[in-house]
C-alpha cells in the first residue's frame, strides 16, 4: 500500500497550520455525520425500548410471541446461511479454478439478487408456489406448504442472501490463485482432501466474513419475508415482522424492545466482522500510522 514510496512522506510535506485545521474540520464533519445519521437511530432504539424501565423491557422480550419469533428467525438463518455457504464455495470454486464459456454471465446471474427489490423477490416465490402459481395446485394436492409457511420464508431469505458468500470468496480465491491446490493434486491428494486441507484453511477468513454478512442479512430481512409470511402470530412471524406487528398494536415499547434485540445482533455482527478484518487481513484496514506525519 503506502510502502510503495520509499521516501518518508514527512520529509517532503509537513502539514501547515491551515492543513491541520482542514483535517480536523473534515474529521469533525465525518464524526458529526456518523453521529447524527448512524449512532442516533441506534441510541433512539434503546432509549425507546427502555423508556418504561428495565422491568417492562425484560417483560416485553420474554413474551411468548417475541420468543417464538426469535426462534423462527434463528431457525430460518440456520437453514438459509449454510445453504448459501455451500453454494458460495461451489460457485467460487467453479469460477476461480476453471475456465469455461459464459463465466461472466454466471457471475452476473449470481449478482441478480442484489439488485432485485426484496418485495419483488417475495412476489417471485408467490408466482411459483402460490395457490395460483406454477406449483401451487400440485403442492396443495399433496398438502405441502411453502408460501405462508416456514419453507417460503427460508426460500425468500436464501434469495436475498444468495450472493453474499460467493461475492466474498470469488475475488479472494481469484487473487490467491490455485498453485497450492495444484501442487497438492500433483502430489496425489484427492479432491476432498485438497479442499479440506488446502483450500479451506486458506479461505476460512473470507468465508467467515461472507457467512457473517449473510447471517446478518437473513436475521434482518423484512420486505421479501413480509410478502411470503402470512403473518401468523407465533408461527410464521420472524423477529423483524414481529417488530412491525407490535408497532401496529400500539405496543411501542415492546416493538422497540424487540428491535433492540435485532440491533444488538447487528452490533455483534459488526464486532465480529471487525475482529475478522483485524486478525486476518481480509478487507485490510489501513495501518494507523501510515499517513500521519
Amino acid at each position, binding site marked *: 500500500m503506502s510502502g510503495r514510496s520509499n521516501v518518508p512522506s514527512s520529509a517532503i510535506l509537513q502539514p501547515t497550520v491551515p492543513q491541520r485545521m482542514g483535517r480536523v474540520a473534515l474529521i469533525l464533519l465525518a464524526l458529526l455525520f456518523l453521529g447524527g445519521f448512524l449512532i442516533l437511530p441506534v441510541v433512539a432504539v434503546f432509549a425507546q425500548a427502555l423508556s418504561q424501565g428495565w422491568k417492562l423491557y425484560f417483560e416485553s422480550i420474554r413474551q411468548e410471541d417475541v420468543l417464538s419469533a426469535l426462534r423462527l428467525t434463528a431457525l430460518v438463518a440456520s437453514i438459509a446461511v449454510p445453504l448459501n455457504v455451500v453454494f458460495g464455495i461451489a460457485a467460487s470454486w467453479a469460477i476461480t479454478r476453471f475456465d469455461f464459456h459464459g463465466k461472466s454471465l454466471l457471475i452476473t446471474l449470481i449478482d441478480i439478487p442484489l439488485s432485485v427489490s426484496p418485495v419483488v423477490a417475495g412476489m417471485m416465490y408467490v408466482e411459483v408456489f402460490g395457490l*395460483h402459481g406454477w406449483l401451487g395446485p400440485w403442492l396443495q394436492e399433496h398438502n405441502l406448504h411453502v408460501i405462508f409457511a*416456514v419453507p417460503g420464508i427460508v426460500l425468500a431469505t436464501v434469495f436475498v442472501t444468495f450472493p453474499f458468500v460467493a461475492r466474498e470468496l470469488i475475488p479472494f480465491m481469484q487473487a490467491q490463485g490455485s498453485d497450492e491446490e495444484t501442487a497438492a493434486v500433483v502430489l496425489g491428494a484427492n479432491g476432498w482432501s485438497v479442499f479440506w486441507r488446502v483450500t479451506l484453511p486458506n479461505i476460512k477468513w473470507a468465508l467467515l466474513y461472507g457467512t457473517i454478512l449473510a447471517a446478518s442479512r437473513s436475521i434482518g430481512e423484512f420486505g421479501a419475508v413480509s410478502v411470503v409470511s402470512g403473518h401468523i402470530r407465533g408461527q410464521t412471524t420472524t423477529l423483524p415482522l414481529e417488530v412491525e406487528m407490535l408497532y401496529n398494536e400500539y405496543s411501542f415499547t415492546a416493538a422497540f424492545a424487540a428491535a433492540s434485540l435485532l440491533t444488538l445482533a447487528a452490533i455483534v455482527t459488526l464486532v465480529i466482522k471487525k475482529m475478522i478484518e483485524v486478525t486476518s487481513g481480509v478487507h485490510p484496514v489501513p495501518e494507523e500510522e501510515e499517513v500521519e506525519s
Partner: protein
Amino acid sequence: MTSLSRKITASLFLAIVTIVGASALSAQTHLLNVSYDPTREFYEEYNKLFAQHWKATTGEDVVINQSHGGSGKQASAVIDGLEADVVTLALAYDIDAIAQNGGLLDKDWQTKLPYNSTPYTSTIVLLVRKGNPQHIHDWDDLIRPGVKVITPNPKTSGGARWNYLAAWGYALHKSGNNEQGARDFMKKLFNNVPVLDSGARGATTTFVQRGVGDVLIAWENEALLALKEFGSDKFEIVIPSETILAEPPVAVVDKVAQRHGTEKVARAYLEYLYSPEAQDLEARYFYRPRLKQAAEKYASQFPKVNTFTVMEGCGGWQKAQAKHFSDGGTFDQIYGK
C-alpha cells in the same frame, strides 16, 4: 452431467420437503383466523373464550392462530394460499373477492350466518385532539382549508373505504344527490390529507403517536381503543350528523376447512360470536353488539348515531368498489391531481 445434477436436485428437493413435512406435522386441532388490523385485541380474548367453550361442550382442545393485516392484503394472501379456516374481514367485498378469485367458498357465503354474517357492527367517527381546538363537529369541518385530516388509503385499507363511503354518503345527501357536488366535497377533503397510510392501524398511529393531523377518521372501535390506550385526556370523539353503518363480516373458508377437517369447529367458532358471552366481549372491545341485551348494557358507550348502509349509500359493495376504488374510479380522479 445428468445423473449428478439429478442427485443434487433430488437432495435439494428432499431438503425442502423435509422442512415442509416438519412444519405440517403438528397434529392438534388448529384453526387459523385471518382477520384485519383493528380486531387484534378482541380476537385474542375471544379465542380464549371460545377454546374454553369448545372444551366444555365437546371435550376437545382447539388452538386458534391469528393473522392480522390490512383487510385487502389478508384477502389476497388467502387467495394465494394462506390456509385460513375462517376469515373475519373489514368488509364483504374482500370475502367476495376470495369467493370469486379462488372459489374457496360459496358466492352466497353471506347468507350462511345471521345478520348478513356480521355478528357485530361499528361505525365511522371522528377523533380529534382534546378540547377540539379546530372546532370539528361534522364532515363539513373537514374540508375547511388548513384542517389536516388523517385517513388511510382506500385502495388498500378496508377501514378507509368505510371512511370514504361515509363521507361520500354525507356529501351526496347534502348536495341533494348531486354527484358532482359530492365529488367536489371529496376532492377538498382529500386535499386536506397529508399522510395516507396503507392501513387503519397505521393511520391511527400517525395521528395518535406521531401527533400528525387535526382529525382522524376512524372506526368507532378503533377510536374508543385509542382513548383507552392513550387516555381520554388527550383525545375526544366527535360523532358526525350522519355516518355509515360498518358491517365487518365473517365466513368459513369452506374448501380449506374441508381439507383440514375443521368445518365443524370453524362454523362453531363463528356461530359462537353471536352468543351472549361473546356479544358482551365484543361490546367490551368497542364493537356494537347485535344482541339487545348486550347493546343495552353498554348503551352509554355507544351513543345513538344516524347511519346509512352501503346498500343505501351506493348500492352495495360491488358497485361501490367499481365506482370509487377501481383504477380510474372517483378516488383516482379526485386524488393527487
